[in-house]
């Protein structure tokens, strides 16, 4: 993971770039997975993904390999926004 972050930092470990992706997934898993797979097209993958209307499966917090999820305390209402931060 240290190697992953070095592409965003200078030799003094100062952050040089902080890409953020913003997207409404319209509650679709296909859209959600397609979004994350498309990050390979970016010169630097996002460090933060800001999602609206994520897909839900029995109110389980969705995630993606390499990302950590942050969500409101309650996912009771569909369409709640949430975020994933790279870790």
């Amino acid at each position, binding site marked *: 993971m240290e190697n992953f972050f070095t592409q965003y930092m200078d030799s003094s470990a100062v952050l040089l770039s902080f*890409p953020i992706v913003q997207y409404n997934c319209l509650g679709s898993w296909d859209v959600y997975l397609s979004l994350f797979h498309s990050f390979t097209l970016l010169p630097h993958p996002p460090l*933060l993904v800001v999602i609206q209307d994520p897909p839900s499966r029995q109110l389980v917090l969705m995630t993606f390999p390499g990302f950590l999820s942050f969500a409101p305390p309650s996912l009771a209402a569909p369409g709640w926004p949430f975020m994933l931060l790279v870790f």
Partner: protein
Amino acid sequence: MHSVDLLDPEGLFGFPHRSLRVTSVYLLHTNRSPYRSIPPERLFSFLSYPHLVLGDFNLHHLLVDPCRSLSERDFTLSARYFDFAFDIPYDLLNTPRVYTRFPFDTVSRASVLDLAFANTAVSPLVSLWDMPLPSTGSDDLPCVITLKPPAIMLPPLLRIGPSLTCIW
């Protein structure tokens, strides 16, 4: 609405601010359960540290879509959010006329529903708002916001270049 505070003890990009707040917004202008509208007063506030407000606002506004014919309701509703944000002030990061939603039907026109606002503490760090990613199969396109430290500005007489002039 959902916010996350990112902390950097060394200071964000060398700036004195040690935190960045990012708020994700999904506005549905209805109070029909389980949804409820979020007033602009809850989205935008006077903060001394960087704050980004990103999301699907479900609003139409002439600043981002100047060719659109707005209904009286659209105009009133969007003005409420935009005016409040600009008064604080927050800057709009979207590039005008760059659409974020392309409906599949042939009747609806493209629109800009996905908006990004930055308060003045973070505006100098925003280097790019762009849509470089392809369609994911939905009618929305992802937006990418890149924060970078502002370019270091040297005093003009010390700037190194092909027409370097040093006056001592």
